[in-house]
Structures are given as C-alpha cells and as structure tokens.
C-alpha cells in the first residue's frame, strides 16, 4: 500500500477535498478575484465552528443518543453575561473570559446532572436546559447589545501575515484536541465508551467521570466561542448561536466522525468547517436563489458523507 493510497482511506480526507474543490470552483468563477479574501473569511468563521464542533465531537463519540443541543443557548448566555460584565472596559477582558468559561462549565455540569441524576436522555436534557439558559440570557441583558472592549474586538479580527490570528489559535486548540483524543486515558476512554459502554465499564474505564468531563468540556468550549463571537460581531445578540446548533453536528459528521459513536478524528473538523463556509460562499457567488442554495447545500453534504463512508468506515 503506497502512502498516496493510504491517505485516501483517512476518514477526514473527503471534507478537505470538498473544501478545496468548492474554493477552486469559486475562484474559477470570479477569475481569481477575491479568492484570498474568501479564504481568510473562511478561516475566521471556520475557527468559530471548530471551537464548538470540537466539544460536540467528544460528546457524539460517547455513543448513540449523546449530543449537546444546548450549545447555542450556552454561547448566548456566556456572550451576553461576559459583555455586560466587561461593559466595554479593556481591563475587564480577562475577567470576562473567566466568566464566559465558568458559565460554560456550569451549563455542562447542569446538563450532566440532568442526564445522570434524573436519567433523562442527553438529547432531551440538553434541549430542555437550553430553553432555561436562553431565557436567562434574555432576562440578563433585556435586549441591550453591549459593545465589547475595543482591544478584544481588534484581537478577534487581527491577522498575522494575512492569516487570521483567531484561526491560528484555534488550530493550536485543534492539535491539543487531537492529542487529547488519541494519546490520553481520557480520549481512549471516550472512544471505548462509544463502542460499548458496558464493555468499557468492565474493562476498567471510569465511565461516569469521563461522561461528566465531556459534557462540561463541550459547554465550556461553547462558552469560549460565545465570548469570542460576541467580541467579533460587536456585541452579543440573542440569536447569535442559532446556526451553531446544526452546524456543530454537521461539521462533526462531515469530518468523518461516526454518528454512532466510538470513532472520531480532529483534522476532519477543520476540513468540514472550511467546506461548509466555502460551500455557502460559492453558491452565493454563483447568484443562486435562497431555495436553490439550501437544496444544493443539502445534496452536496450528502455527497461528501457518502464518499467518506465508501472510503473506509464499515458501519
């Protein structure tokens, strides 16, 4: 088996091939005009997708029924509370970050408590808790849009050698996530639980400890994303998390992680996040109407997933 063939058996390759293909198609259509700007925008927005998708990937890998639907509400709550606390003051930036992370961790702990103590299926537990968190966000800021501290806003749009700074940082985060998944006791435990939770317990994996850590980590990453996204878009909006509900799941699945659990990879998250953003950009560039755009988005996603599962996955 040659190295070239081997790479086509990687589950994440199809998301990357898709991303490159739609970018090339867009660039060809515009005859190269704006191609680098599109790429730069894709990296910034892709970075936000990857932050939440990283947490969602670990949750989904825990096995059938595990998914976190409270990500949008958690992002909104963390974003609004952090923005209001900082109130535009640059000195409060670290405090705001800590508050956003703490809110995320709290949301995750509540989600896990509902799942564990009340034995509610995760999909229901996180959906119902998300209504509470969303209402808390509405109550907290009463519809006001507080501007972020200026240095923080600048930070989220800064570029180094043309590459968005935030994308570079999220790449480092992704590498850490990859190491966490493949090289630590925690990561092995998550993958074992996703394949067979009873066998994992009987093999000595600390099942409940790992499940708790996973839900808390996922919500903490959502809190971080809410904080950065509010800073990026000039303040927290109540609907800012909306599109992150389905995209966080789509990015995980397109990236080659098994929806059935027990099988995950991190490189695919970046490929899929870039692919999703570039796909919408391409259809916009082509001047497709809203209806055509949604239909094509759906069909192309199906195509990538079919290609990916034909590559390597057995079940």
């Amino acid at each position: 088996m040659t190295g070239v063939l081997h790479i086509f058996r990687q589950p994440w390759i199809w998301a990357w091939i898709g991303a490159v293909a739609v970018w090339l198609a867009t660039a060809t259509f515009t005859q190269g005009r704006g191609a680098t700007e599109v790429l730069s925008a894709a990296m910034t927005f892709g970075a936000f997708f990857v932050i939440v998708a990283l947490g969602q990937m670990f949750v989904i890998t825990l096995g059938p029924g595990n998914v976190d639907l409270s990500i949008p509400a958690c992002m909104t709550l963390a974003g609004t509370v952090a923005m209001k606390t900082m109130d535009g003051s640059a000195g409060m930036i670290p405090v705001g970050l800590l508050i956003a992370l703490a809110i995320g961790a709290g949301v995750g702990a509540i989600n896990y408590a509902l799942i564990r103590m009340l034995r509610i299926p995760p999909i229901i537990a996180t959906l119902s808790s998300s209504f509470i968190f969303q209402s808390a966000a509405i109550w907290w800021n009463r519809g006001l849009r507080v501007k972020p501290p200026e240095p923080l806003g600048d930070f989220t749009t800064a570029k180094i050698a043309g590459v968005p700074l935030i994308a570079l940082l999220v790449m480092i985060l992704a590498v850490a996530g990859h190491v966490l998944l493949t090289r630590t006791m925690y990561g092995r435990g998550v993958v074992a639980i996703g394949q067979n939770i009873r066998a994992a317990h009987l093999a000595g994996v600390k099942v409940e400890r790992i499940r708790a850590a996973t839900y808390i980590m996922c919500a903490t990453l959502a809190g971080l994303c809410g904080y950065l996204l509010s800073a990026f878009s000039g303040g927290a909006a109540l609907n800012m998390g909306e599109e992150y509900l389905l995209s966080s799941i789509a990015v995980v699945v397109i990236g080659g992680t098994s929806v059935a659990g027990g099988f995950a990879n991190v490189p695919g998250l970046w490929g899929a996040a870039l692919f999703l953003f570039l796909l919408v950009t391409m259809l916009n560039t082509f001047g497709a109407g809203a209806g055509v755009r949604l239909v094509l988005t759906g069909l192309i996603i199906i195509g990538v997933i079919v290609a990916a599962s034909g590559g390597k996955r057995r079940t």
Partner: protein
Amino acid sequence: MTKDAPVVVLNGVEKSFGAVQALRGVSLELWAGECLGLVGHNGAGKSTLMNVLSGNLVPDTGRIEVAGSDITDRLTPQNATRHGVRCVYQELSLCPNLSVAENARITHPSISGPGWRRRARALIGGMLDTVFPGHGISADDIVGDLSIAKRQMVEIARSFAVTTTEARVVILDEPTSSLDAVAATKLLSHVRRYVEAGGSCVLISHLLGEILETSDRIAVMRDGGVVELDDAEHFNRDSLVAAMGSVAEDARDSADRPVIRDSAPIVVEARPKAPDSLALAAHQGEVVGLAGLSGQGQTELIVDVFDHASGAQVEGSVALVAGDRQTDGVFPLWSIADNISVGSLQRFLRGILIDQTQARDFADEWRQRIGIRTPDVDDPILSLSGGNQQKALFARALGSSAEIIVMDDPMRGVDVGTKQEVYGMIRDEAAQGRTFLWYTTEMDELRNCDHVYVFREGGIVADLPRAEMTEERVLHASFRADA
C-alpha cells in the same frame, strides 16, 4: 431427494483473508441422516468453512452443491436458507431489540399476513418446547433481556423450526459453549432425533466428549484443511487431540497443590442477596470456582466484586474476563493491540500521554504468550476467530496489574490446547499471589479450582473444598431436592 447422493458437497473450497489463508482446498460430503462432527483449534477454519456453506462468505475457488444443485455462483444467506441450510452462529445472529417471536419471523418469511405474530409465537414456542423442555422463555420476551444461554436456545430452536422451507442441513457452531450441562444434553439428544428422522447436522465443538457421543462421522481440521475424516467409533479422545495437533493434555492435577485456605488472608468476601445463601470467601492466591447451572446469580456476583459493590468486601484492584464477549468484552472498531492494552494503559503513561510504542509492544508480547493467531496485532479485533478474540480478552486481564481476576465463563469457544495453556497460566499466576474467581459451567474447569461454591436461584447452596468436590456433589447441589 435420493438417498444415494450426498446432501451437501464441498469441493476444493479455498478462502483467504488478506495474507491469511483460512481454507486450503477443503472437500467434504454430508449425507442425509448423519451428524458430522467438526473439530480443530481456534482459527483452524471451522467457522469459515461453515460461513461459506451458509452463504455468508464467497469462496475464492471451489464448488458447493446442496441437494444436487450447484449454488456456488448464487451463494447468499437467503439462497442457502432456501435450499434448506440453516446455521446457528457462534456469534449469535438475533436482533436484540425484537421479541423472540419477531426474531423467528425474520428467518421464516412465509409467516406473513394478519395473525403472523400468533403463528410466529406458536412456531418458536413449540420448537423451544421440543428441544429444551422447561426452557422458561416466553415468545414475547425481548431478546436483549435474555441471558446468553437463553438467547442461544432461541437461536437453536429457530434453526430447527420448519415452515415452507425445510431444515435439511443444520449447522451448529459451538452450540453448547453458552449452555449448561442440562440444556446441552437436551440439545444433543434433539440432534440425534433430528438426524434419525433423516436430517443432516454439522456439529462444531471443543468439547470432545459430546462430539464423540453425538456424531456419526468426525472431520478434524488443521490450518485450513481437513486432516482426518472417519467414522466416530474409530476415534477416541486421545486420537482426536493428536489429530488436531495439540500438545498432550497436562496431567498435572490441582490436587498436588497445598491448601492455603487456612493461612492466606481473605481478599474477597461476598454474600449474594438471595435468602439463606451461604457467603463466599476467597483467600489470596486461591482459584475459587463458581459452579451451578448457567444464570443462577454467578455473573451478578462477579460484577458486584468487580464494582466493589456494597455487599462485597474486596481488598485490591479487580480485572474481569468477559464470557459474553460481544456484549461485555470486545471493542469492535479497535485493533487487537488496542483491545489488549486498554486494561493496562495506566502503566504506559509518560506524564499524561500514552506511550503507544510501549503499549503495542506489550500487546505483541501477550499475542505470543497466549498464542493469538494473527500476523499483526494492529489488525482489527474482528479479523480474529471467536476463540482468538477470547484469548485477547484473557490477555487484557492477565496483563493488567489487578490483584484479583474475575472470570465470567471465559472459555467459550476456546480450543482444548489453549485451554490447557490458560489453565497453566492461571495456576502460575495464583501461585504468585493473584486471586481468581472463576464462573464456569464445565466440570473439567472446576477441577482446576481450590475451592468451589455452587449457585442455585441466585444464592450459594454448597461450599466445597477441593478434597470434597466431585461431579456428583456439584450436580446434586445444582438441583433442588424437590425438582
């Protein structure tokens, strides 16, 4: 069907999986009214051969005839079933989310239209009553809720049931490995009745006694080929073992080991919740057997000890060897190496990172020690035969640092030679101070134990030191006096 032509002809069947040649030109005939015993080591090709006959695997070369028609080119499980070939798989093939009756309907599509549920219930219930009288299974039970022994009974009964397609050839792949002695006897006498009525049967088993008693002819497989084939009466236990190429059975008896019960400290104390149950005590370095019919509370006690649950006092860390490997043991998406090392990862930590080279070397060392038949521990665990998967689970537990090892009927599907080696390993580990709790339904395995507790209806009813342990006493305690 004519009497003078064989029901099944396998001619020069070959099958390779990558570099491993599982079958090297097997030719075999099966006649109406006979039971053919099939024996051989784990990985000798028995299950592969039967998977070819039942249409699950397409052979690389060779010809397969059933009832006079060549079906080599149309080999699918559906087509094999249409020709009357039924298979009871070692890895059970029932759908766990469906009821017993619904599972029966799946392989009997002629049951259809209004009232199919009632007819499916009658079909499977009647067959269960015929093969396993007193089985205690309702046709409305959900399969996933049944113990592995009961699931095996359902699978067997479903294969013998006849609707519009007849059951001409029934393949039984390790059918008794999950059954206790009583259910196994019922099955084997049904096999004889079925064969005498003109049916054909292939019986695969590692229990040579039942092969010798039940079969008319016996085929011995080794390294993907049939090395001997003769009438059953021309074989005995020793000649079978010799033909399989096993090392001679280890005659070392546990009786020559000293009794350590009086001096060694107690490491496990547990009392099942059933009323009037005796308590179990295991001393350090002992091999303690949990006997009785299957499903009498032995597994529950083992899991309680593993969990350090209330009601069980356990001194030390515990590792478990699963018997129901699909449900309790194997991680199907992982390699053999990952499946073995998952029990010992703590040891390979460098800071917080796992040293993967070290973990793999550890798995490879255990592959050699316990003789897992694979060229490469990086291959997927599902590329192994059932018995070899079981060896990987043994390696996981024995290789861990646990002081206490609990085993839940762990020898299912493991061949004679390997069993002897594993017995030896268990005795050596015990001599070095490890403690074993060993649930088994096989008498031969109890002879390796220092002390035996017999379970019945969720409680312990007899407490037998090695010197007092006889087959008769174990059986006597397994049944209620009024039953």
